[in-house]
Structures are given as structure tokens and as C-alpha cells.
């Protein structure tokens, strides 16, 4: 097994939701200590979520976008050197989701802002010598519905503009030597196997992201997905869950936190019901 291909996502740290002592996640010292712990655990690669929110918040200690990395380390090369000294010699991928840009009823704003920052994130992925750039093709279904109650009627338009956006990113990714992969989170307009026709409409160099837990929640089987789509899977997110969505939680405003019955949707691999073996 090529252990260099297995990375820990920094997404394992909860940056968004409140808990006691959450504030330490905003300072540089926390992350620099974490890199060493990841390395000591036997992982030499990390995956980094790209989150523009830290740029607007000015919380540059959180290394989750180009602005923060440049502020704290001068440039991506210096950041990679710091990672290397900490035992992390590979940023396998950058992930990007456009949720924060779904904040009003203006689709031009959503696609404009998403395009701008996704391009920025893709260039940052290249600077970090990442293998892939994994993008969520839509915000939460429930967040779109908040501002576009006619979401079902506008699906065609939304899909066409998404294809245009992702197609441009796929071309740029090719030029930069990065693989664009499309995520299929269960809460997406393109969740589960609904992502397939979307990726069919993209250039061949755009690949699929197999997120095992998301596929399970959306009612699919990771093993079947792997078998049928093996030629175009660009990366795997090895995630686990016990959650069975019987009440269309995927359509709610905060789908990772089902409102009617509290549960942790995502679990450590091996502690849920996904057939990972």
C-alpha cells in the first residue's frame, strides 16, 4: 500500500460550531502543533479545506486559504517548508464548498463569488503541489431553498451554470497539473449518484470523489460505486456513518445536524455502518 496517498483531512477539526475552548482553533500555534501530531500518528499527508470565511474574518492563524497562508508564512512554499519540518511532506488535496456564497436570491452573486474563490483555491492547490482539488458542486439544498423556494423549477438553470463553472475549473486544473474532482455530499443538489449526469457533462479530466458516508446516507453503496465508476474516481474520502435519512434531512437548512433526532452524522472509519471492508 502506498501510505503517502493516505492523508488526514484538517476538516476533522470543528472550526464552525461552538464548543468550549473552540477559540484556540483561530491561532497559529494550534495548527502547528497538530501537524506534528498527525505525523506522529503515521500520516505524512494532509488535505486542507479552502475557506474564504477566514479571509473575511481576518483570522489568519487558520491556514485555510491563500490569504491566511501568505499572511503567516509569506507564501505557499514557506508554508510547505513548515509542514515538511513537522513531518508532513504532502498536501494531497484542497477541498472547497460554496455554501457561504448562497446568501441571497441573486444567482449572479452566487456563481460570481464561487467562481472567483474556487479559482483562487485551485491556484493555491497548485502552489501547494496538491494532487486534487475537490469541489462541492452546490451548497446545501436547504440553503438554496431558503433564498430560492422555487429550487425545483430552477434546477435546469442552476445545473447549466454549474456545468459552465466546473468546466472552466476543470480546464484550469489541467493546465495547473491538478485533478478536479466533484464531491457528492448527500445534502447537495447533486448528492449521491445524482452527481453522475453532472460529471458526464464535464470534460473527461474532471473526476469523481467517492465519499463513502455521503453515498451511504444518499442510499448508495460505496462498493458498487467503486466498481462501476473506477475509471473516473479521482479521490476517495473514507468516511463512516450510522445515519439513515428517512425524513429527507438532506433537504433541511443544516443537514449535518438533523433537527428531529440528534445524531453525529459522520463517525470515524470503522465505527459506523458503511461497508468499508
Amino acid at each position, binding site marked *: 500500500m502506498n501510505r503517502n496517498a493516505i492523508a488526514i483531512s484538517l476538516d476533522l477539526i470543528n472550526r464552525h460550531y461552538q464548543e468550549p475552548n473552540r477559540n484556540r482553533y483561530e491561532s497559529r500555534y494550534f495548527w502547528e502543533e497538530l501537524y506534528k501530531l498527525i505525523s506522529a500518528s503515521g500520516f505524512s499527508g494532509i488535505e486542507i479545506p479552502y475557506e474564504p470565511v477566514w479571509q473575511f474574518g481576518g483570522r489568519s492563524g487558520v491556514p485555510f486559504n491563500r490569504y491566511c497562508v501568505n499572511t503567516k508564512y509569506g507564501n505557499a512554499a514557506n508554508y510547505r517548508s513548515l509542514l515538511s519540518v513537522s513531518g508532513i511532506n504532502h498536501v494531497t488535496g484542497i477541498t472547497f464548498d460554496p455554501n457561504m456564497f448562497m446568501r441571497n436570491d441573486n444567482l449572479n452573486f452566487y456563481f460570481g463569488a464561487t467562481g472567483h474563490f474556487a479559482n483562487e483555491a485551485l491556484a493555491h492547490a497548485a502552489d501547494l503541489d496538491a494532487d486534487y482539488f475537490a469541489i462541492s458542486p452546490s451548497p446545501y439544498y436547504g440553503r438554496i431553498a431558503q433564498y430560492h423556494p422555487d429550487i425545483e423549477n430552477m434546477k435546469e438553470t442552476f445545473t447549466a451554470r454549474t456545468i459552465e463553472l466546473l468546466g472552466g475549473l476543470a480546464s484550469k486544473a489541467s493546465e495547473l497539473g491538478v485533478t478536479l474532482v466533484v464531491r457528492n455530499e448527500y445534502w447537495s443538489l447533486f448528492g449521491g449518484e445524482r452527481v453522475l449526469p453532472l460529471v458526464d457533462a464535464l470534460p473527461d479530466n474532471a473526476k469523481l470523489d467517492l465519499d463513502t458516508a455521503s453515498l451511504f446516507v444518499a442510499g448508495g453503496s460505496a462498493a458498487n460505486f467503486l466498481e462501476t465508476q473506477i475509471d473516473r474516481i479521482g479521490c476517495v474520502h473514507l468516511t463512516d456513518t450510522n445515519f439513515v435519512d428517512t425524513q429527507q434531512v438532506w433537504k433541511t437548512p443544516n443537514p449535518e445536524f438533523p433537527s*428531529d433526532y*440528534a445524531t453525529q452524522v459522520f463517525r470515524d472509519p470503522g465505527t459506523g455502518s458503511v461497508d468499508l471492508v
Partner: protein
Amino acid sequence: MSNIRYANMAHWKAIPYRKIKNFREFYYEDNTNSAYYSSWDHILKYQSALGFDGIEIAPWDLADILPLFGSPENFTQFAKDRGVSVIGMFHGAHASHAQDHFEEAVRSGREAVDTIVKFGGTYMNTCPTQNYYGTGPLSREEVQQCAKVMNEIGRYATDNGVKIGLHNEFFCAINLPNHRELIELTDPKLVHYCIDAAQIAIMGEDLLKFYSDYHERISTFHLKDTASAKQPDSVRYAQDPEITDDGTRWFWEPGQGELDLKGLYRLLKQHDFKGWMSIEYDGSPDLLASMALTRYYLDNELRPIYD
């Protein structure tokens, strides 16, 4: 009725649930305290139980609050049902020093006022422009431009029943050399001032002298303490000064720093201040503990001076 009513500036980051209907089941998911910090129902009840019957929301909360509650009015009613009023919202008037940004800065300020009105709030504490780093020092014309924007937003706010209060951060382009200049350039009928006790002390203002000089302009407070007053230019003008690399805290709960807050309360009594005061806990590792510590200090040390 007390002379001062107390609110909390919301620094809870995102709260994922409106209400957890099956709290016991939630607890047994992981046997930790995460359930205690995951719903607005709980957060607002903590506030109410500790005597903070107002909440000031932050614009960065809106992206999560609105889908969760459906509308500002729904959130306000939900809070009211738990004994908490929305008193207002913070607003950052980005780039208001720039002449070519005038229309955008005013439009954004007016939209924020409209949002506050929907939440039933009456205060908009407003940072006059962005960080010093990359922007400052401002020319006299740029400070005047900031004032022009504040007056314009202030007029719209006043017409809609909202008071805007200038709220300066210690690392802003409006800084010690031009802090009072900006205040003097704004119209006192339209633009008020929110004293963030720690921010202005770190910037280099003397808290008691500043309040004495401007007590007629004060609309509200962000009450917090600091042990780091009068920082040098090299800190205030640095690229990323607010969140420190090593975890050093600028801001502490009232009574845990070095500010003369008892002196402030004696002045509040002297000038007969009546209204809302928000406590702000940015930097706290445990917001609920900070809230309780603050309530103890308020009731035992500060309120007896005036109430």
C-alpha cells in the same frame, strides 16, 4: 428598573440547532458537553438565567441563523419567548475612507440597518473602516470621507429608529491619531459612540477620560477588560494583530483585567447613563463560564456603585 440593562454580544460562532428535542439521547451520542452548546434554545436560556436579557447579533451569524429560523422575525420571537430581546447588530463599514467606495459603503450600511429593524433591534455598532495595515495612515480627506459615510448611514438609521454607534478596534485605520478627529467630524444628532472599553484602552485612550469627554455621545458599550492597554504602533499597525500566533489574549472578562471599571461606573452614575450595555467575550475559551463570571462581577462589584 435598573439604570442599565445587560446584553451579550453573540460570539458563539455557529449554533447548529434551534432546539434539541431529545436532549438525553443527544448526550448519549458521545457523553460530552457538546449538546450543551449546540442549540439556540440553550444559549438563550443561559443568557436569560444569568440576567442578560438582550443579545447583539453579528453579521457573520446571519448566514446560519436565517436558514435555521427562516426569517429575522422568527429568531426574534424565539429569543423573546426565552426572555431575550435582540438589541442590535454589529456592522463593519468596509473601505468607507475611500471616496470611490461611498455608494457601496452607504448601501451596505443601509442594508444592515434594514436587517436590524427586521430583528427588532435599535443599535448598530459600526466599525468605521478596515484595518490599519494596508490602509493607514489615513489622510485628513480620508477621515472626512469616513465621517461623511457615517453621517449618511446615521441619517438613514435615525429615520428608521436605529442608533449607530462608532465602534473602534485597536487595529483599525481609524486609530489613536485620528480617533477623536473622526468623532468630531460626525454629526452628534446622527452618529453616536459605542465604547468598547478594552479596544479603546489597547488603542491608547484613557477609558475614564474618554468617557468623560464624550459621555453625551455614548449610545451603548461593549464592556470587556484588558491587561494590555496602550499598545505601541508596531502592534496596532501590524498585519494580523487581533488573533495572536501563540494564543495570547487581549480581552478578558470584566474584573479579570486591569481597567478601572469601578471608576467607569462612578462616572456612569455621575452622568446618569441609562440604557443597554453589551458584554463581549471575544477570546474567551468558554463563553458560558465567562458569562457567569461576568454576572458575579456585575452584581457584586459594579452594579452596587450605580444601581
